[in-house]
C-alpha cells in the first residue's frame, strides 16, 4: 500500500533513511529474539526445577535424615545443618559488617587513607571467588585442628556475607541527613549514642535489607563449604564436627548414579531456590513499602 502512495507522488525515500529504517527492523528483531531466548531458557530452568523437585519432594524428604541409597532417606539433617551454619554465619558477620560500615560512613572521610583502603578491600572481598574463601578457612581453621567443623563452614560463609553488609550499611548511613547528627549533638548526646540511637535507627530498614541480601547470597553457597564443614551423613549438632548442609548434599547427590539420590538432590535444589527467592521477594516488598 505504501508503495502506491510513494509512486503516485513521485517521491522516493532517501536511501539513508531507508537504511536506517531497515537497521531498526533488524535491531528490533534482534532485541525481541534475544529477550525471547533468555526468558525461555530461564523459564526452562524453573520448569525443570519445579517438575523434578516437586516429584522428589515429600514429607519423608523433609522429615527423615540422609541415608544409604534405596532406604527411603531424606534431607532433614542437611536442612537443619544449613540453617544452623547460615544463622551462625550471620551472627558472626552482622556485628563485624555493621561495625565496619559504621566506621566507613562515620569516621571514614575522603582524606582517611585507612578508610579508603578498607572500602576498596571490602569491594575486592565481595568479588573474590567463593572457593578461595573455602581454601583460606581450610588453612586457618581446619588444617591446624586436623578435622573439619561446622564452625569453619560458618566462618567461610560469614566472610562472604560481611562485604555485602558493609556496603549496604555504609550506603544507608550516608543517606541519614547531617542535620539529624547535629540535632543529636545539640542535645548533648555523645557520638556513639548518636550513631547507634539516631543514625542506625533511622537507617534500620536499609541495614536490615543488607543483612537479608547477605543471607540470600550465603544460603545457596556450596564451594566454601566443601573443604570446611564437609558434609555429614548423620545427625550432628556439634559445631566442632563436620555438619551436613543442603547445597553440599545437592552436589554429592546430583552426581550419584542412584535414582532416589538424584531425586532428593532436585528436591533440595527446589528448597534452596525457593528459600533464596522468598528472601529476595521479601526484600523487594519491604523496599517498595518503605
Amino acid at each position, binding site marked *: 500500500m505504501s508503495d502506491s502512495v510513494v509512486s503516485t507522488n513521485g517521491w522516493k525515500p532517501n536511501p539513508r533513511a531507508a537504511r536506517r529504517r531497515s537497521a531498526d527492523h533488524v535491531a*528490533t528483531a534482534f532485541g525481541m529474539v*534475544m529477550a525471547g531466548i533468555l526468558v525461555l*531458557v530461564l523459564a526452562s530452568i524453573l520448569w525443570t526445577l519445579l517438575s523434578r523437585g516437586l516429584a522428589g519432594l515429600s514429607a519423608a524428604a523433609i522429615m527423615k535424615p540422609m541415608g544409604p541409597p534405596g532406604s527411603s532417606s531424606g534431607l532433614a539433617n542437611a536442612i537443619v545443618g544449613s540453617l544452623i551454619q547460615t544463622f551462625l554465619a550471620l551472627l558472626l558477620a552482622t556485628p563485624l559488617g555493621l561495625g565496619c560500615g559504621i566506621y566507613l560512613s562515620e569516621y571514614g572521610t575522603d582524606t582517611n587513607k585507612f578508610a579508603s583502603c578498607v572500602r576498596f578491600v571490602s569491594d575486592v572481598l565481595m568479588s573474590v571467588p567463593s572457593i578461595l574463601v573455602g581454601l583460606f578457612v581450610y588453612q586457618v581453621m581446619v588444617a591446624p585442628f586436623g578435622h573439619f567443623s561446622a564452625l569453619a563452614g560458618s566462618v567461610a560463609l560469614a566472610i562472604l556475607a560481611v562485604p555485602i553488609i558493609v556496603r549496604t550499611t555504609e550506603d544507608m548511613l550516608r543517606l541519614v541527613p547531617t542535620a539529624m547528627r547535629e540535632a543529636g549533638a545539640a542535645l548533648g548526646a555523645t557520638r556513639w549514642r548518636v550513631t547507634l540511637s539516631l543514625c542506625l535507627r533511622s537507617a534500620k530498614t536499609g541495614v536490615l535489607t543488607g543483612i537479608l541480601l547477605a543471607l540470600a547470597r550465603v544460603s545457596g553457597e556450596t564451594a566454601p563449604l566443601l573443604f570446611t564443614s564437609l558434609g555429614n551423613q548423620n545427625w550432628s549438632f556439634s559445631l566442632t564436627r563436620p555438619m551436613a548442609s543442603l547445597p553440599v548434599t545437592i552436589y554429592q547427590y546430583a552426581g550419584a548414579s542412584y535414582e532416589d539420590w538424584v531425586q532428593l538432590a532436585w528436591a533440595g535444589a527446589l528448597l534452596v531456590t525457593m528459600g533464596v*527467592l522468598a528472601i529476595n521477594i521479601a526484600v523487594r516488598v519491604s523496599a517498595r513499602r518503605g
Partner: protein
Amino acid sequence: MWWLRSPDNARFSSQSFSRMTLATATPSEEARDTAGASRSGSRRSGPDTAFHFLVAASALLVLVVLGGLVVLMGIGGSQAFRTFGLGFAFSDVWNPVADLYGAWAPLFGTIVSTLIGVAIALPLAFGTAFWLTAMAPPRIAAIVGTAVQLLAAVPSIIFGMWGFFTIVPFMARTVQPFLTHHFKHVPGIKFIIHGAPFGTGLMTAGLVLAVMIAPFMTAVMRDVFAAMPNMLRESAYGLGATRWDVMWKVVVPWSRSGMIGAIVLGMGRALGETMAVTFVIGNVTDVGWSLFAPRSTVASLIALQFPESPAGSLRLSALLALGFILMLLSFASLALARMLRGNTK
C-alpha cells in the same frame, strides 16, 4: 563537636544526588573556627573512644581477612612456585602420579570458558535490556524485569544441575553428532569440534556460565539504560531517529561506563564460578583447541582434587598456587572495571 568533621563535608560533592540536599547542612567556615576553639575544652568521653576503637577494629579485621587470604594462598603455593619456577604458569602438564604440575591447562579452561560465556551472555543481555527499555509494554517489562532480577540471585549450583541434566545430554545427543557429521572435514572448524560426544567441555561450560551471568548483566544494563534522562531520548526521537538510532547513538554512548561495569562484573563471576562449571566441564586436565572435549578450570580442579591432596604435598601446594593465580585474575578484572569506569566518566 565531632559532627563538624562528619564525612559529608568532604564527600557529598562526589556522591549521589540524594546527598546533594545535605549541602545546606554543611557547617560554614566560621562555625568550624569556633568549633576548633571550643574543642580544646571539650572532653572525649571514655565510651566514645571505646566505640571508635571498636568500629575501627572491625574495619581492620576486614582488611586482615583479605590480607590473610592473599598471603596464605601465596605462602601455600610457594612450594609449587619454587619447584616449577615461572614455568608453572605455562606448563600444560598436570600429572599427580609423576608429581608434575603446571597451571596452563586449568587456566586455559578458565579463560576460554569465561570468554565463551561472556560472548554469549553479552548479546543476550544487551538485546533483552534493549527490548525491556525500548519496546516491551510497560506492564510486561515490569514483570520480566523483576523476574530477571530475581533469577540473578539463584544459587549457581542450580545452574550447574540444570546444565548437567539438560545441556550435557543435548550436546552429546544432538549438537555434537550434528557438528561432527557436517563439519568433520572442514578445515579450521575440524579441530574445534573434535572429540567424542561426551557432552561436557568448554562449550557446555560457557553456555551454562552465559545463562548464569546473563540475568545479572541484563538487570545491571537495564538499570543503567533507565537512568538516562528521558529528555535526551525524546530529543533524539524528535529529530526523527529510529529506535535503534536512539539506542546505538544516544543510550549506549551515555551509559558506556555502566555497561562496561556490567560486562566486567559478569566476567568476574564467571572466572571464579565453581559449582556451575564443575558439573559440566568434564574435568580432564588437557589442553587443546577442541571446545567439545572434556577440560577443567581452575575452580573446578580445586574443588575436585583438593579433597584427595594430603596436607604438605606438592599437589596441595600446586592447587593453592592455582588459587593464588585465580585471585590475581579476579583482582585484575575488578581493577579493570574500576579503571574503565573512571576513564569514561
